[in-house]
């Protein structure tokens, strides 16, 4: 499982760089959800399934919804 973890870590680094360098706001939020999903897989690899459940629910679910709602409140995207 070590090779799989290293591949996931490389994806994690690329997605975290892509969040901060992307032009589109909606696109960066979607990549942030992908970051949370990869982080959940990594928590499971590090034998912390408790944190993996919480990261998948809060990081990929609630945070994405709240950020998209904030974007629609400041009228950056249409509802």
């Amino acid at each position, binding site marked *: 499982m070590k090779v799989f973890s290293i591949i996931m870590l490389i994806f994690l680094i690329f997605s975290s760089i892509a969040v901060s360098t992307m032009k589109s706001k909606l696109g960066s939020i979607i990549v942030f959800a992908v970051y949370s999903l990869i982080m959940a897989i990594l928590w499971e690899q590090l034998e912390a399934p408790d944190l993996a459940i919480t990261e998948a*629910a809060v990081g990929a*679910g609630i945070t994405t919804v709240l950020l998209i709602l904030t974007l629609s*409140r400041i009228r950056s995207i249409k509802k």
Partner: protein
Amino acid sequence: MKDKILNTVGKNLIPFIQIFGLYVIFHGHLSPGGGFAGGTIIGVSFILYRIIFGKEFVQNKLRFSLLIRFLTIGVFIYGVMKGYIFISGGSDLHWATPPLGIPGSIISGGFLLPLNIIVGTVVSVTMYFFYCLFEEGEI
């Protein structure tokens, strides 16, 4: 919203999300999970319910007075139980506690199961309120 596909999928999917959340809460002292993770999953099901069926319909089902009553009574009972177990265990008084039970069964672990249930209730209501405040500025 009047979308038939969305209505049907939501009607069939939301109960399963809630059952999974209840599973995570009730097995919090035996397996990974617990009050916070399960409560977040149930809160996500409430948010999905409100997105699909609209504001007016859901405000009659999940009334603000009912939810705020769950929230405040839950926080109050949590404070009382946690203070009781801190005083009882921290100063070696050994007051009465719920039975510890057989390890591995649902009814075991003393105060852990009721505390998990209360945390799940409070977290699910709080997540639903967060969504409502971000969407419209009111609940």
